């Protein structure tokens, strides 16, 4: 495996909270341009793994490497975001008192300092990108709506749109279809596949149907470490996976 193809590299990562080992000697490799689905029972450490990658939680030990050279454990959330890792939360999190458009404006890549924000003026280029994203996330008719007034699914999309505006190399997506209708789920899968053409994506999801629709390599976590990895069919036939997760 050549280092330059590896976008994200976790090796021997462990973290525990008050004696509880949330992540236990976890290793994971994600190639540039790859989409990966993470499955696993509740408490398997999926969200904690994302916390570690995005700098919210510091691992007790282990190596977390991005883009072959950056040690993510040495950076905080904002820096990691600027390195090109975007994250979507389990519960859709958008700025409810801002309009859809303002949500995207805030997410657009660009200078992040307070002073540049104070005297910021929107350029034609930025307007164009926002237009594009609004179209991609199917919200172009609602640009002036307050985000608070969007439906649950629309909020999920808006959040994905914000990630796109951020222009990341790697997207971490936590349960994107929770609470969505079937139609919305299908639409979301399509959206993610579209996105994965240009960047790497890590999707955490319970919905097997959805995972199947993504049609990518699957990693199953259990008790903080990797239980099995491979195609969905391969993983879902693994005896241990069936025992701890699928079978019940």
């Amino acid at each position: 495996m050549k280092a330059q193809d590896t976008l994200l590299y976790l090796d021997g990562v462990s973290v525990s909270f008050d004696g509880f080992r949330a992540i236990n000697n976890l290793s994971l490799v994600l190639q540039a341009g790859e989409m990966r689905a993470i499955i696993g029972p509740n408490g398997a450490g999926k969200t904690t793994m994302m916390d570690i990658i995005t700098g919210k939680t510091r691992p007790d030990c282990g190596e977390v490497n991005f883009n072959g050279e950056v040690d993510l454990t040495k950076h905080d959330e904002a820096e990691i975001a600027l390195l090109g890792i975007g994250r979507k939360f389990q519960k859709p999190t958008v700025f409810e008192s801002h309009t859809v458009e303002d949500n995207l404006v805030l997410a657009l890549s660009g200078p992040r300092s307070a002073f540049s924000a104070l005297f910021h003026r929107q350029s034609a280029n930025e307007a164009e990108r926002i237009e594009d994203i609004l179209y991609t996330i199917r919200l172009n008719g609602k640009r002036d709506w307050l985000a608070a007034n969007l439906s649950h699914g629309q909020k999920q999309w808006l959040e994905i749109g914000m990630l796109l505006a951020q222009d990341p190399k790697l997207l971490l997506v936590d349960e994107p279809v929770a609470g969505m209708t079937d139609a919305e789920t299908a639409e979301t899968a399509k959206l993610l596949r579209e996105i994965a053409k240009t960047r790497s994506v890590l999707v955490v999801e319970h919905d097997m149907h959805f995972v199947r629709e993504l049609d990518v390599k699957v990693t199953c976590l259990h008790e903080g470490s990797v239980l099995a990895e491979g195609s969905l069919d391969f993983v879902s036939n693994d005896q241990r996976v069936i025992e701890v997760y699928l079978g019940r």
Partner: protein
Amino acid sequence: MITQWFFTHVDRRGGVAIALLVAIAFLVPLSNLLLPESSPLHIPTYLVSLIGKYLTYALLAVALDLVWGFCGILSLGHGAFFALGGYAMGMYLMRQIGPRGVYADPVLPDFMVFLNWKELPWFWYGFDNFWFAALMVVLVPGVLAFGFGWLAFRSRVTGVYLSIITQALTYALLLAFFRNDMGFGGNNGLTDFKDILGFNVQAGSTRSILFAATALFLALAVFVSSFIIRSKLGKVLVGVRDAENRMRFLGYRVDRYKLFVWTISAMMAGIAGALYVPQVGIINPSEFEPANSIEAVIWVAVGGRGTIVGPIIGAVLVNFGKTYFTAAFPEIWLFALGALFIVVTLFLPKGILGLYGSWRTRLADRAAQKRDSTSQSPVANENVQLTEPQAAE
């Protein structure tokens, strides 16, 4: 051109407030100084300094709203910045007394003479110069806020924890300023002022000028706040208030944004204190009382947090109520004030301006319902207030 620039940064309500403030900055002193006392439009000096005092409180409230209303940082210690600004101005006024103090000491303020201080402490140097003092008015609260905020925001102290340590900050300062050994006059504070910039502080004309300055500074504060809030920075702040983590994962250094607005707000509070002192004639440690800071929070809440103009209305109204009730019902006025706070939080959760706002929204809704049957208003409404972000998680 200028008006156009102005209106791109200020909404209509802010514009009206600024216009009104500028108008009273000129009209009130004119009416006080030029109209005869018999005229029904004459405003007595008593009212000029009273309203002047209210306006300094309003300035404090605007400063507090900037951090609380728009950035979600509930400060229970903003009175400390106000008091520090006040002390800086008080020190200037003290030095202006010069040899006219009761002990006729050309350098030492009276309280130092009778407590047997031999020389001026170093931190009093320079305060005989107005511009130095004016600089300190913003610098001292600013530096304290910066240091405090730098520590707190970097460590991600939020919600109630932050509120309580701001309270600890002002409480510690209260105790410190009470100490005579600090060199700020102990509990009696700084008083017996004579001149400001060569004008007698007690003269009617000086009072009018101070009043005008207060009104203009308040107008400026409204403008600055509007400018900040309507910029992208303001949107970031609201984003921080509503979903701090989202902001962080978008790559914003949330602590720096907070620190920026926190420091600006502390400086505004310092200016408010500096304008307050010459109009009230005394500054003493009671300004550091945690209760004072809590009251300032209440002004903001009553007026409507997250609206720039609301806190002005709240500060003036609550203080007017206090003035009125303490004279009209001296024995039971606390019942009235206490009840006011309860009623406002229960029935006007968005404050007075919020009530006005939701009333307008409702009208707009009704109109919209007439137009089509969609129940939700798709129109972005600046008045819409948010439910409390998970501040005390």
